């Protein structure tokens, strides 16, 4: 404990340099936490995905649609309990920057399919009864300060939905009962969009509930077989695989984000290491003096490592706190409703702090070894 004052004083020797090192570690931890939050978001979906739900899209790509007639054929497949469908609307709320997921859904069956969308019976009824009504997640409502009864207008963002604005009345604000549902999305009646659509009777994807989760893969195969060699061939997968496929549209996200995180951390490690080495080199005489006073090599080593760890952990705390503040407040809904709103979890903050600790340790080890192995006489002679 008595050496802590010494470590603190040493760290404050060059305030600007220490501040810049802290900043670089803070930035690294911030980026690492942000990237980890995205990956955690995808993992949360996988973990919460229902084993009973299948998603059917066009075999070519999920951006192509299918006819509504597919719905009845899917419903008649043995093992299928319920079917619903949805379209990606892609509308613009005031400004294209205000991006959030908007889904044109078949309301009754969709709410049956997703019991995780939590609404009061009154809200549910009001939504079902109003063809221009919509429901929004509580996160989204909070972001735009929306209340039940508010009217909002979306401009169509995809040409197929025409050029006229779509007014909506908010009939319900739902809560997400699990990570499989995003609380940053909006859902409205599929018919409302369809009646103005230039391609009527088109569906983006079907969601099917199977009676027996163990037979889900088999049922998926049967569904796809029914549309084989038709103009609208399908690809049916479990909800989990569907989420993963969405992620894969962005490339191999895990590898991509992992590589970015690694590059950031390594760069910071080199920066911090170089700074520490520079700092130790400047203090050669002081270290030699301390050794002359009787400070053992091991104590000198620990003092330098302690300084590196202190600077890095302060950076880690700042980076973690920033990530919590900025990402949890701003980055919500970036995944467009396909993964739930993600945030920096406590676990993520702990990992970030651990990372800063490791950066501090690794960056300081070589300078600390240099300092502890210093030949006193040579070091003193360098200045005298």
């Amino acid at each position, binding site marked *: 404990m*008595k*050496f802590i*004052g*010494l470590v603190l*004083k*040493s760290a*404050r*020797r060059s305030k600007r340099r220490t501040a810049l090192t802290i900043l670089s570690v803070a930035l690294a931890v911030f980026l690492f936490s942000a990237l980890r939050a995205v990956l955690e978001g995808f993992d949360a979906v996988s973990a919460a995905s229902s084993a009973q739900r299948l998603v059917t899209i066009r075999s070519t790509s999920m951006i192509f649609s299918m006819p509504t007639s597919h719905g009845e054929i899917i419903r008649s497949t043995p093992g299928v309990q319920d079917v619903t469908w949805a379209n990606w609307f892609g509308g613009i709320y005031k400004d294209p920057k205000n991006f959030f997921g908007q889904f044109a859904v078949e309301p009754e069956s969709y709410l049956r399919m997703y019991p995780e969308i939590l609404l009061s019976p009154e809200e549910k009824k009001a939504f079902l009864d109003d063809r221009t009504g919509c429901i929004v997640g509580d996160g989204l409502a909070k972001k735009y300060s929306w209340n039940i009864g508010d009217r909002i207008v979306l401009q169509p963002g995809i040409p197929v939905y025409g050029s006229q604005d779509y007014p909506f009345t908010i009939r319900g604000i739902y809560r997400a009962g699990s990570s499989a549902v995003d609380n940053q999305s909006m859902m409205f009646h599929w018919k409302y969009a369809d009646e103005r659509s230039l391609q009527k009777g088109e569906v983006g994807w079907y969601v099917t509930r199977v009676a027996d989760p163990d037979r889900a893969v088999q049922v998926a195969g049967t569904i796809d077989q029914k549309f084989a060699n038709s103009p609208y061939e399908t690809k049916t997968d479990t909800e989990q695989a569907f989420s993963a496929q969405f992620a894969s549209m962005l490339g191999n996200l895990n590898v991509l984000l992992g590589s970015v995180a690694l590059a950031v951390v390594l760069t910071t490690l080199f920066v911090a290491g170089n700074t520490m080495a520079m700092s130790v080199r400047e203090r050669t*005489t*002081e270290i030699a*003096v*301390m*050794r*002359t*006073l*009787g*400070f*053992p*090599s*091991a*104590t000198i080593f620990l003092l330098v490592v302690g300084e590196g760890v202190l600077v890095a952990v302060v950076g880690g705390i700042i980076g973690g706190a920033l990530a919590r503040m900025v990402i949890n407040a701003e980055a919500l809904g970036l995944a467009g409703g396909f993964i739930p709103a993600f945030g920096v979890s406590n676990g993520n903050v702990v990992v970030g702090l651990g990372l800063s600790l490791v950066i501090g340790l690794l960056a300081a080890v070589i300078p600390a070894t240099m300092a502890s192995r210093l030949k*006193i*006489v040579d070091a*003193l002679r360098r*200045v*005298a």
Partner: protein
Amino acid sequence: MPLIELRDVTKSYKRDAIEIPVLDNVSITVDEGDFLGLMGPSGSGKSTLLNLLAGIDRPSSGVIRIGGTEVSGLSERALAGWRARHIGFIFQLYNLIPVLTAFENVELPLLLTTLSKKQRRDHVMTALGIVGLSDRESHYPRQLSGGQEQRVAIARAIVTDPTLLLADEPTGDLDAKSAAEVLTLLQRLNGEYKKTIVMVTHDPHAAERATHLLHLEKGTLVEQTRVASAG
């Protein structure tokens, strides 16, 4: 009773493949309570001798015994502990830590002891009192004059009450007035506090303050004198 015994001590450095002799078979004894001045031209080996006494360098051969401990035989770790307990070192350029106050600089060697914070404070204030700088405890080195810095360095050297004080040209960087103050202080530490001091110096005025003088030339002891007027 001799506090310091050097027997046939030689020291040479290797520069590339060339062996450069610095000390050649030096044998001396210094009694407890002596104030020894080490004199000689540049390159005569006096600073090397001081470094060997301080245990921050090792002889190529020979034996160094201080206070009954054969210093030349100690391991690095043991030597560090021994230095902390027995040696107070005063540098020519003071070598205070610039980010520490006068108090913290003097306290530095005490961090290696088991003393409590209060005990450390008492020791530091006593040492600063002896050098006449009690009122400068919170000053940083840059806020002190050269003479004051050297006095803080002396306080740091004596704060652990070491067996031996070693001073490497302690007045070499000071003006005449400050140098005189520092030498008077060293003389007081020797006379009043019975500290054994070995001081390297070029300055004949400084040498006059010592009780004994050793002259080195080309690594060899050429003359040993007792200074009559000292004290």
